[in-house]
């Protein structure tokens, strides 16, 4: 059970990291709109020739 001495501080570091990441996400504005992004992934990208053209151009340049 001596492993506790290592595991407990390790858990503490991990939840500290998780909290820091979450707080960063909050400051980054990722929680400002809780409804929109949840739905937006369900929509298909529209078929748009214009968009494909720009992409091709970018590819050519790259």
């Amino acid at each position, binding site marked *: 059970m001596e492993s*506790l*001495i290592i595991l407990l501080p390790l858990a503490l570091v991990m939840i500290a990291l998780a909290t820091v990441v979450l707080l960063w996400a909050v400051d980054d504005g990722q929680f*400002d709109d809780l409804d929109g992004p949840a739905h937006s992934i369900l*929509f298909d990208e529209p078929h748009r020739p214009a968009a494909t053209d720009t992409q091709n151009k970018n590819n050519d340049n790259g």
Partner: protein
Amino acid sequence: MSDNRCFHCSLPIDEPIRFFATINGICQPMCCPGCQAVAEAIVAGGLGSYYQHRVGSTSQQVTLEPVEELAIYDRADQQQGFVHPADQGCMVANLIIDGITCAACIWLLENHLSALHGVVQVSVNLSTHEAEITWQPDQLPLSQLLLAIHQIGYRASPWRADQQEVRLKQENRTFIRRLAVAGIGAMQVMMYAIALYSGAISEDMPALHRDLLRLFSAIIATPVVLYSAAPFYRAAWRDIKLLHPGMDVPVAIAIGSAYLASLWATFFAEGEVYYDSATMFTFFLLTGRYLELRARHATIRAARSLTGLLPPSCLKAVSGHFIRVPVTDLQVNDIVRILPGDTIPADGLLLQGTTSINEAMLTGEHLPRKKQSGDSLLCGTINMGHPVEMRVTHVTEQTQLAGILQLQRQAQQDKPAIARLADKVAGWFVLFVLLVAVAVYWVWSGIAPDDAFWITLSVLVITCPCALSLATPACLTAATGYLHRLGLLVTRSHLLEGLHSVHHIIFDKTGTLTEGNPALANVIVINDTGLAPQTVVELAAGLEAHSEHPIARAFATPGRYKATDVHNHTGQGIDGMIDGAHYRLGRSDFAAPGQQLTPPDEQGQWLLLSRQHQPVAWLQITDTLRPQAVSTIERLHRLGKTVTLLSGDNASAVARTTRMLGIRHWLAEQRPEQKLSYIKKMQAEGQQVMMVGDGINDVPVLAGADVSVAMGNASDLTRTSADGVLISGNLEHLADALCLAARTQRIIRQNLLWALGYNLTALPLAATGMVAPWMAAAGMTLSSLLVVSNALRLSRPPAFLPGSALWKV
């Protein structure tokens, strides 16, 4: 009524259907050219799948704003405040977009705009309706961007973030931070707690391990208790200072004492730790508060669209010429030209000519009102007739519109508070617990002075009012969710508790009890013509098929007659040739010029049909009742409520409606301030008043009533002033909501009884030191679970049907 509905906005369409749009390969009916144009623009952009993804219907598009009105935003001085430069010559515009109803709208807007040449990035926020658009101004003027938004049926206005908005955003972020800290902390502490509990039950955990787990629990629980739970302490301290203890006081005491007792146990190795209870409790309560905060923010934000009521620019006379200026530049005594379809930018006097003005927004009267030179024109109303000129008499804050908003703000402040049952109980409970705690300390310090402090703390922890403080919010959340599914959106949390105690229900007429659309009510054939009423209607329908006027919607019958050579005369009527004869339909002096004819009745609006200038028949246009109006009023009467109709419409129209609905009390020609004073009078007599309305003219009353509900088709401003919005437009759901409110109140009582019962049983056991900590924890969880599952019964539809005896609660 026909079953045809507009594919775009879902409003019913009358036969014959004249507008169509091809969407995803299928020809769909449209109600008006506005919807048709919007639907075609959406399809042309390759975004037709919007119609598969949208939730509910889209708002109707009647007018499309002219390009030149938006062109004002291309001027650099008008872009100040909402357009900022970005990298690589790009600009960022912050807009607020009106008309967003669901996530499909966001998708539509983002895809439609990003397809434009010159647009770099678009992001639209569904909760706040703010759009941030990055674009290259040298390739695309801002007005084209705004126009593109208008083309797909939304209204965009500049969004200059004010201090309040910054504060709301900050508040939202802080709350999520607290929630995150509490959630992560509670999970971790709970894991340690399981180890501690199993160690305590099997009694073979080494003291070193136990102390180590306790120490780490303490480290993790500290930010939760000190940071996440801070709002509870602040609210509790405010309550104590005001000598008016609410639910926050026992909550703060419970969290604080559990934490302090645990710290004591951790560092002096005596007693038990309660870190898990303290953190879990904090997390659960914060979650409830957060949902409340979001609902509150949503209503505050809706109020911002007020600016959308006014046009961005208008035509002002400058040394003989009319030039387009921003409305904010207008001064008293300026001369302004108002084109047909324009919104009037300020209060003023009509200088010359005649026109008809739609004042529906201010008065609720849906038929246009005729104006002559010298008559006053009100800011926010719409010119339906000719181009006219007016002299500005009042601008911005002095206009009648601003006056109504001022009235609304005052009414909101004076609104009587609905006392919350839980808060009343909490006040007594906290007093009782504190007295018991003092008594326990006093008794135990006589028996065993060393244990007194610890036992007192355990009493405070055991009486932790978890279940008590969850009793009401859990019920309200469940009932609110159920109402939402019915189509009644609760925007202020006191709606349900208020509905229960309402005695008096006040309705507005136009748009609330009626559809707000004109319909043909009566045909009186003038004696010597010998035409059948049916033929008269068909002749009229033949003419009106060529008209875009709202009245044309009243003629639903498919026309046997085809009119040719048709001319619209704005504010007068319509004329054309049918079967070789010249017909005119409209005002009597237009249809039969030179003859002084009076309508058969004072009520409603009468149109005259004439053939070769000889009068043929009178046609009466009125507003149709909503289909559920009669049954709803009857149900409300059966529930023992008083129903009153307060309308801005004229007395004869109101009397007719009340006769049809069986409403005994009514007042006509009421101005907003009169409506408000009526409600104040009722409240002074000790009645709790509920207001149901839809117009801007109802705004002060909605704000002042104890409980208020706005119809789903109401403007954003009206919705903001109300406690709930009837999105479905089905009046029956109001009566359902009243029944549900009664059920909710009953279940809240059951919950409070159980929670108090549990706490009062546990109290003597704890005071005598007979409760093991794990038993206390299990009991606490169990009582909370019981309260929550009892509340969840409200989220299910009732097992009995509307109209059955059980509904009469």
